[in-house]
């Protein structure tokens, strides 16, 4: 009988709290959006599933061994852990958890050993998080794969579209000001690192957002990743009204010159030029842009097809699976069900909107100077969200003029936006670390 009581006590229903239950519903919602509505399914299916698994009460899949020891350990375990943190033996579990979260590396290692000795082990998804995101490797490997899938041809044919990709990054920085403002006005409580991590949602680039927030604001990573991927999926809803509001019909029907053919050599040399420029000017962006250029060079150089194929397939897929599950581990009730998440969701959509607007306005501004005019509709593609934003440019263009195919033209600012947000990420990580 004792056994049944224990099994029941241990069962999910009994341990379920309101927050946990809500997070499981959030996970189901993410799965619904991904599967039924087609919201960036490659990431949101693993994230949604990881969210549910991380919130299974009593399973502790997203907890470290030490966290589990604190969570379910008896008085003796807690006393040993308290000794590690240098506090009284009867310190409460809640208090120990706080100490654990602010502990030094030495204390963490010691607490881990105590937990191991009592038979606790790191939860599965916690392990995935440490290996994939904590080490910083998974977003970089995905960026390498993205590089191996990216064709810089349209950008090389029309390099001035890089300016559109630059302008659209203003969404990132405006959002930082928004977050700082919310914080200054006392509505929310974001640090400058939090604000920078939230801003990167405006980069409209999943791996960049995960990379930056894993460094600057790991607690917000779950909400930021969900916001970034969700809004990327919503680009076809968010962008068109802004694009129409800022352009006249005559601008929208403008046809662009056909792109010149780009030679294979240009495509090979471009990632090297970009890497050298990064090396000379912006070392803080080197991990992201280095891996991106490396993937692209493997693609274009033509002599390592098998490496390029693996980077585009088995390797990026494997990494995506574990990255997604690991992101799910940051969707715990305690951090997600917070007013901050609302702020993140609100600021995220503003970031997308401002980025879109600035891209369009920059195109109009450039048209004051350049000879070969740019259809302002391709400016919105500068937010990245590859290839969705470019398709939106194309679609809105076709609405105005059924003969006006803008897709290839929009691919230029689209990939420029990836470079732009990686640059912004590097600058922010470097500046915030020094603040």
């Amino acid at each position, binding site marked *: 009988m004792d056994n049944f009581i224990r099994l029941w006590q241990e069962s999910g229903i009994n341990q379920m709290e309101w927050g946990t239950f809500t997070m499981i519903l959030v996970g189901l919602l993410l799965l619904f959006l991904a599967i039924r509505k087609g919201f960036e399914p490659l990431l949101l299916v693993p994230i949604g599933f990881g969210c549910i698994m991380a919130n299974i009460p009593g399973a502790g899949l997203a907890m470290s061994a030490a966290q589990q020891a604190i969570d379910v350990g008896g008085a003796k375990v807690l006393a040993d852990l308290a000794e590690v943190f240098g506090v009284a033996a009867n310190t409460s579990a809640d208090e120990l958890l706080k100490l654990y979260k602010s502990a030094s590396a030495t204390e963490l290692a010691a607490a881990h050993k105590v937990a191991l000795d009592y038979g606790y082990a790191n939860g599965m998804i916690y392990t995935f998080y440490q290996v994939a995101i904590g080490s910083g490797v998974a977003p970089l490997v995905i960026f390498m794969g993205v590089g191996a899938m990216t064709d810089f041809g349209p*950008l*090389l044919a029309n*390099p*001035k579209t*890089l*300016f559109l*990709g*630059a302008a659209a*990054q*203003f969404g*990132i*920085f*405006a959002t*930082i*000001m928004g*977050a*700082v*403002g919310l*914080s*200054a006005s*006392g509505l929310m409580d974001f*640090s*400058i690192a939090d*604000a*920078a991590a939230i801003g990167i949602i405006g980069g409209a680039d999943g791996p960049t957002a995960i990379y930056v927030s894993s460094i600057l604001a790991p607690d917000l990573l779950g909400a930021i990743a969900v916001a970034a991927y969700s809004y990327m999926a919503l680009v076809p809803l968010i962008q068109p009204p802004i694009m129409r509001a800022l352009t006249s019909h005559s601008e929208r029907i403008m046809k662009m010159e056909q792109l010149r*053919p*780009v*030679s*294979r*050599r*240009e495509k090979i*040399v*471009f990632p090297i*030029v*970009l890497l050298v*420029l990064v090396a000379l*000017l*912006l070392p803080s962006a080197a991990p992201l842009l280095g891996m991106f250029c490396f993937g692209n060079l493997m693609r274009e150089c*033509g002599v390592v*097809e098998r490496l390029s194929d693996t980077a585009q397939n088995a390797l990026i897929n494997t990494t995506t699976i574990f990255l997604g599950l690991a992101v799910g581990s940051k969707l715990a009730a305690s951090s997600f069900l917070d007013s901050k998440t609302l702020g993140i969701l609100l600021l995220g959509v503003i970031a997308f909107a401002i980025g879109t607007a600035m891209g369009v306005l920059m195109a109009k501004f450039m048209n004051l100077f350049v000879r070969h005019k740019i259809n302002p509709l391709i400016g919105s593609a500068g937010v990245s969200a590859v290839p969705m934003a470019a398709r939106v440019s194309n679609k809105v263009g076709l609405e105005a003029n059924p003969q006006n195919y803008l897709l290839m033209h929009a691919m230029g600012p689209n990939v*420029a936006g990836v*470079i*732009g947000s990686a*640059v*912004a990420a590097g*600058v*922010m990580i470097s*500046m*915030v670390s020094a*603040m």
Partner: protein
Amino acid sequence: MSDTLIQQGTDLMLFGMGSVLVFLTLLVIATVFMSGALNRWFPEAEPPVERKGRSSSASASSAAQVDKKKLAIIKAAIEQHRARRR
């Protein structure tokens, strides 16, 4: 504190956006220079075609008019072939 925070945010915005613009401007210059240099001094003898590993896509489009029925048969054959290999 909140004053400092706004100050920090402003700094981040100004210098961050500035860096992005400066970097991408330099990239535009470098790219234009690179393309010019390559096309001038190292032009590719052949017209810029797709590289070898993917040349099959060219023949794909040229033969796009393969009739649908034939395609269905071939697809079926491929599937059978794959199924047997498993």
